[in-house]
């Protein structure tokens, strides 16, 4: 089990990570989700031992890791730019960690082949890394991190440099593989879809701090504050006269035969339904989808299911 207690870290004298507390259970997949500059990559590098702590402790199974240099931690790290060794073949890259562990040469080859099997690159060990496509490079980087059987896998934007379509597919594959092998994993991403699709728990980071940490469904259902809600893509945030700032879940709003009158501001046809943006009489905007066709400028009546209203006030 990995444990971070009050971890702070600085780069060039500027504190990037502030007082982070986090536990990752064996076999658990945790995503560090945040916008760029939120300190998530630095935190990952702190865990790998590539960036020193300025405060706090990182422990593995109770053992303090601060005196342990990166090369003795046996944490697999996958870099966003893959960092494949240009002077080595695919096999030479994947086998590097085993070589460093002192595994005899004749045992390295079959292990490399197995690792390449896992990522769907069977038989490509002899290829030069420069000849690979972006997606293939990503898989080689993953196989390289997996081959030495690390006790913890650290993935920095594992699909961040690829195009959208490939990204979705690789995330699904990655999730399957990590679960199948029960690999303890921390994955850094700025894309909430990736985080939610991969992780058991998502830790949302903002300016160096973890502001929320929960299972994807919980986080989605009850974002702790307005910033997190907006970051996760929930924009239906209005002022409620009784409760202050509230989030209105899109699925909680519907057009009814009686209810509050609103003016339709825009209508967009989207995946078989209509996405409406409406304006309430007190000038607040709401978005939701409906199957009912309407036209811009008309008045409709809406009702909001109270269970779909999340209170955001009173929280930081």
């Amino acid at each position: 089990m990995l444990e971070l207690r009050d971890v702070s870290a600085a780069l060039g004298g500027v504190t990037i990570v502030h007082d982070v507390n986090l536990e990752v259970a064996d076999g658990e997949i945790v995503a560090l989700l945040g916008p760029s500059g939120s300190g998530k990559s630095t935190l990952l590098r702190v865990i790998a031992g590539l960036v020193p702590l300025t405060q706090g402790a990182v422990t593995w199974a109770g053992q303090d890791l601060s005196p342990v240099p990166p090369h003795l931690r046996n944490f697999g790290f996958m870099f966003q730019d893959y960092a494949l060794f240009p002077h080595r073949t695919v096999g030479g890259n994947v086998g590097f960690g085993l070589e460093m562990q002192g595994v005899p040469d004749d045992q390295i080859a079959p292990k490399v082949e197995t690792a390449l099997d896992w990522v769907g690159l069977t038989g490509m060990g002899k290829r030069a890394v420069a000849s690979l496509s972006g997606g293939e490079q990503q898989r080689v980087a993953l196989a390289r991190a997996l081959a030495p059987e690390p006790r913890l896998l650290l993935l920095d934007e594992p699909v961040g440099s690829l195009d959208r379509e490939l990204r979705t597919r690789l995330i699904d594959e990655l999730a399957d593989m990590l679960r199948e092998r029960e690999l303890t994993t921390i994955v850094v991403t700025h894309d909430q879809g990736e985080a939610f699709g991969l992780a058991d728990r998502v830790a949302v980071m903002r300016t160096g701090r973890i502001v929320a940490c929960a299972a994807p469904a919980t986080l989605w259902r009850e974002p702790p504050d307005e910033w997190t809600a907006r970051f996760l893509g929930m924009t239906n945030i209005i002022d409620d006269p009784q409760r202050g700032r509230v989030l209105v879940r899109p699925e909680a709003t519907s057009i009814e035969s009686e209810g509050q009158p609103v003016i339709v501001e825009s209508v967009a046809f989207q995946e078989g339904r209509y996405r409406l943006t409406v304006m309430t009489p007190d000038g607040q905007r709401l978005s939701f989808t409906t199957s009912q066709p309407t036209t811009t400028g008309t008045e409709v009546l809406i009702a909001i299911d109270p269970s779909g209203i999340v209170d955001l006030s009173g929280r930081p």
Partner: protein
Amino acid sequence: MDPNRRSLRWLIAIPTLFLAYFFVYPLVSILWVSLTTGDGRPWAEVLQTARIGRVAWFSVWQATVSTVLTVLLGLPVAWAFSRFDFPGRRLLRAAMTIPFVMPTVVVAAAFMVLFGRTSPLPLVETVWIILIAHVFYNLAVVVRVVGGMWESIDDRLVEAARTMGANRWEAFKSITLPLLRPAIAAASAIVFLFSFTSFGVVLLLGGIRYSTIEVAVWRRYFLLDLQGAATLAVVQLIGVTVVLTVYARWQRKRQTQQAVRTGRLPTPTGLKQRTVVFGIIGLALVAELGPLVTLVIRSFTTTDGYGFANYAALTSPDSAFLVTPATAIGNSLQFGLAAMALAVLIGGLASVVIATRRSSTWFDTLLMLPLGTSAVTIGFGFVVALDWPIDLRTSVMLVPIAHALVAIPFVVRTTVPVLASIRNHLREAAATLGASPRQVLRKIDFPIAAKALAAGGGLAFAVSLGEFGATSFIARPSAPTLPVAIFRFLARPAEASFGKAMAMSTILMLVTAVVILAIDGYRAGDL
């Protein structure tokens, strides 16, 4: 982090001490000799005897004319090679650069065949042969430097100008030329510097009437006028420093220039364009390779037809020399290997220091200085200074050390960019995979930089083989190098000597060409 820093501190010590003793100290000694009137002559007399004004004027004058001619003749060639694609373009362009890397004695030997007293065009010992030789030597600089820039200029800029009513010439004048200006300026500075510091060509082809400062240093030294030679060397250093400073400024401008080109170069189309493009390239190739071919042919020419007689004669002793020419070849190869080893060691260490530092420092400047200092000054400095604290002037290592000094900048220039381009992520990736800092150096940094280091070493070997300026001061009579032997044979009028000089020049040329091509092959293999 910290232990790395500490080890860097002693890494820096070896190159620094080497350069301090073998470069800075001799230069200071030259300055000292020039300022102390050892033989009691008044200062004015020293200057007058050495004819400094005349020599300096000729150096500047011929370098200026050489530069203008080289740029004017080089521009069309650069255009033909950089604006069009055709089969064999890279190979032909590489062939164009062969003369540039040839030792001066080889070029001088070839020109003696073409323009010797008995040839149809006897230009030796006129200023023309000096100018022609400088153009011949430096054309490749213009083709490479200006052509490289020209190739990257976006066609659409000129097309845009044409749609706005500019004709071909106006578009060239108002768009292409201003974009090329930094490259032309940089190339001009290089050509000027090489012509200004020209030694072997002027000494061998110019006769006694023409002297650059380099040649004058050599002549004053062998006339035992140490102070005159030293003063000339100081004047030379000042001149070189001025040119290098100007060049550095232009070079910065060239780097800030943005040039974008997308898509492939067109092939020449139409009879007229093809005639022009291939005509230019054909003429340039004949001019650049013809003399070298002539040299090879001449080396096989004997008094009774063609044959290997000139080569066979190399193994027999010659009355005027202590050793056979074949021994000189052996000396050169040994010196070359020693110089290569030294240059790779010192240059490699220096490269690690430079690449791991953020900003450029006095250290970078110190390392690059030998590149701008003329070889003659280095050789002269050795004989003036290296009798203290122990007399090294008769040491076998003196020649390799001088050659290494000249070659270190080449090693540094090929190695530093590669080391600097290794992203830190690679080292971190290796660390997370279990590699200790030492293993990272051995498994990541060294293998990636090894090719560059080898290429730098190859260059050092080639430089050492052809080095003449410094060697002419320090080579012991009992251990001449190949260029020194060629020089001595060329200086003697007998036909047998000339034949041997041709054979040796051909050997030197071929070995140099093979080394240079091997390095080019390395680089191509990288891509």
